[in-house]
């Protein structure tokens, strides 16, 4: 070992940066229908191929193929499509609202709509969701009123969260939607706890939770996998790999060294990697994982492979760190168009119906926005009472908060 070689430090770098041509040639896109569908009691180390492959149902021609085809009826597919369209319309409107100064902040899920919405469809209505901030589709799919979402975004007098939370950090127990945290990753092990509680009580509801590719680096990700594994919690652990974490490509989360689905294997948790822009595939893997959980077989890790089409948030400008044409080059396409094409292929949809659906969604969003804006937007119109600032810190207000409220004069 004399004359040892000098070491060197390796820093990951993405294939392309602003000015470069977008390059996804490293991304393998296997044909739809080629990945096998094993029984739900499959053990993690027998399912390596599922963690390293890519489960896809919709092929280039818009056909649903292979063992993972969930064989949904056209009505359900149309509802799925319409919910995606509505979510996108909502996002666009709220983004503009932020630009108009009606609120401080907004985050879109453009390009990722199939994930939350197909998963909401695959779960039972009373299963509990612990989302990150890019699963607004869950709420919309479960029928949470758009106007309520807007009231929250506008922090107006009707905001169900009483002006206390940053826009988009929704909460609705009634819709099985856990209060979103600004601190990344914390919800992941909380979902495991909820699932353990459900199992302890002999309940039949399961939990599902979502985390970004970047956020898998937090310690909470490990806690979730470890506790879920040890207690075989009935929980679905979803990693939304949209390739980016603000300006950091997924190589900084270790995504080039192994798939995120593969993270499950070391804990004995089967990992499934799925085309996140394929409504049918997302539905199918979620259903598989849910059945597994309901059968007391424990957790499943799902990597939803997708692309963050827009900036991270209204505070971000992605053209500073990635080629601006990258979204268009994304090889897995647009989830809305892919489901649309499938329905047209089935003869259950048409360009005209699609346009009409888009218009309908826009109208719905517009109406809701008129209603919410009439109540108030951040800094104008009716705001929640400033007394709300002091309420709800504890169940009962202690003397020192009462004193501070008096001092504040509100």
């Amino acid at each position, binding site marked *: 070992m004399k004359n040892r070689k000098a070491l060197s430090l390796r820093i990951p770098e993405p294939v392309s940066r602003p000015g470069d041509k977008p390059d996804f040639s490293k991304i393998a896109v296997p044909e739809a229908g080629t990945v096998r569908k094993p029984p739900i009691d499959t053990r993690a180390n027998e399912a390596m191929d599922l963690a390293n492959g890519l489960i896809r149902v919709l092929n280039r021609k818009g056909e649903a193929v292979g063992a993972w085809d969930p064989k949904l009826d056209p009505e359900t597919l149309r509802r799925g499509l319409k919910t995606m369209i509505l979510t996108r319309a909502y996002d666009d409107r709220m983004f503009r609202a932020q630009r108009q100064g009606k609120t401080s902040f907004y985050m879109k899920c453009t390009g990722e709509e199939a994930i939350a919405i197909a998963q909401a469809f695959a779960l039972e209505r009373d299963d509990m969701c612990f989302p990150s901030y890019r699963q607004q589709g869950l709420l919309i799919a479960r029928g949470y009123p758009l106007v309520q979402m807007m009231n929250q975004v506008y922090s107006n007098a009707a905001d169900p969260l009483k002006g206390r939370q940053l826009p988009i950090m929704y909460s609705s127990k009634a819709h099985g939607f856990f*209060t979103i945290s600004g601190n990344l990753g914390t919800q992941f092990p909380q979902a495991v*706890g*909820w699932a353990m*509680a*459900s199992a302890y009580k002999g309940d039949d509801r399961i939990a599902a939770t979502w985390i970004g590719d970047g956020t898998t680096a937090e310690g909470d990700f*490990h806690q979730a996998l*470890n*506790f879920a594994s040890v207690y075989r919690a009935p929980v679905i652990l979803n990693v939304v790999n949209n390739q980016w974490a603000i300006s950091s490509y997924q190589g900084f989360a270790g995504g080039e060294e192994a798939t995120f689905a593969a993270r499950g294997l070391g804990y004995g948790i089967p990992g499934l990697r799925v085309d996140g822009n394929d409504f049918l595939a997302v539905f199918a893997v979620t259903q598989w994982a849910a059945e597994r959980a309901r059968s007391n077989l424990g957790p499943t890790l799902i990597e939803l492979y997708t692309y963050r089409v827009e900036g991270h948030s209204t505070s971000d400008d992605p053209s500073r760190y990635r080629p601006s044409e990258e979204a268009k080059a994304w090889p897995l396409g647009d989830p809305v168009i892919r489901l649309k094409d499938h329905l047209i292929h089935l003869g259950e949809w048409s360009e005209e119906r699609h346009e009409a659906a888009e218009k309908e969604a826009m109208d719905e969003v517009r109406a809701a926005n008129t209603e919410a804006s009439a109540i108030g937007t951040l800094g104008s119109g009716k705001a929640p009472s400033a007394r709300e600032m002091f309420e709800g810190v*504890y*169940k009962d207000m202690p003397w020192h908060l009462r004193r501070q409220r008096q001092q504040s004069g509100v």
Partner: protein
Amino acid sequence: MVSMNMVQALNSAMDVMLGRNEDVLIFGEDVGYFGGVFRATDQLQRKYGVTRCFDTPIGEGGIVAVAIGMAAYGLRPVVEIQFADYIYPAFDQLVSEAARIRYRSAGDFTVPMTVRTPYGGGIFGGQTHSQSPEALFTHVTGLKTVVPSTPYDAKGLLISAIEDEDPVIFLEPKRIYNGPFDGYHDRPVQPWSKHPASQVPEGYYTVPLGKANVVREGGDVTVLAYGTMVHVAQAAARDAGIDAEVIDLRTLIPLDIETIVQSVEKTGRCVVVHEATLTSGFGAELTALVQEHCFYHLEAPVERVAGWDTPYPHAFEWQYFPGPKRIGEAMRRVMEG
């Protein structure tokens, strides 16, 4: 009433609550089969089964996160962090989550969770088995912070904590698990059985959160203390022959300000005692409050007697510990001031 030491009283509190409410679950490192490294959960797994009281992975962050999820479901988890020194991996879940979920969700979700953890020094545990981190939690609004000083209070306060609708950090002064240590490390420690507060009802009762206890009445100086220091302060007063009023705070947040103000207005002098490091310790808050509320009654500056601003040093335990001598001197200085 039976005589219990503090560990037995804590065990009894959990026993009672496991029996009364099937939504109460107990878990943490080594708390299940073994019954906890300090035996606080002894026999509970055997009595209530493995799903009511169980061991966990060594991941404090996971333990607290899972408890939060359970609480959000509707259970009342009671978790043990083996030593308070090991609570930091759970800090984010406590500070950013447990403390804020009620507020940020406007009451949609709540976290009725209790985090028990042995704290404090005096057992030659070195810097990682001796810390007193209570001040950190008192700065985090949304958390309650409780510190018992006797078996009777330990049981009653723990039951209150478990029944509370908000997250409670329940700090157990491990130096007095087995007896009311008074700071004289070179004298034999009395067992709890000789102390009146070791008489504990076997069944359910509560000691309310947010109420202090005047454990020694006096007219000359007010001493504010909690945990082990309540006993040390009493010994100091006795041995210094000072007519000190010793107040056991019992709950740091919410604090019983009335009892404090009443006493300081009477005595005009105040000494604050804790084992945690001095700077930005809870003694700073107490001092600030006392001078805010009682400035025109104060005849001398409030004195703080606390751990030095060093890590807890293994070999210098008794030079570090704020014992009766240091407290006595502070009382005397304040009396002269």
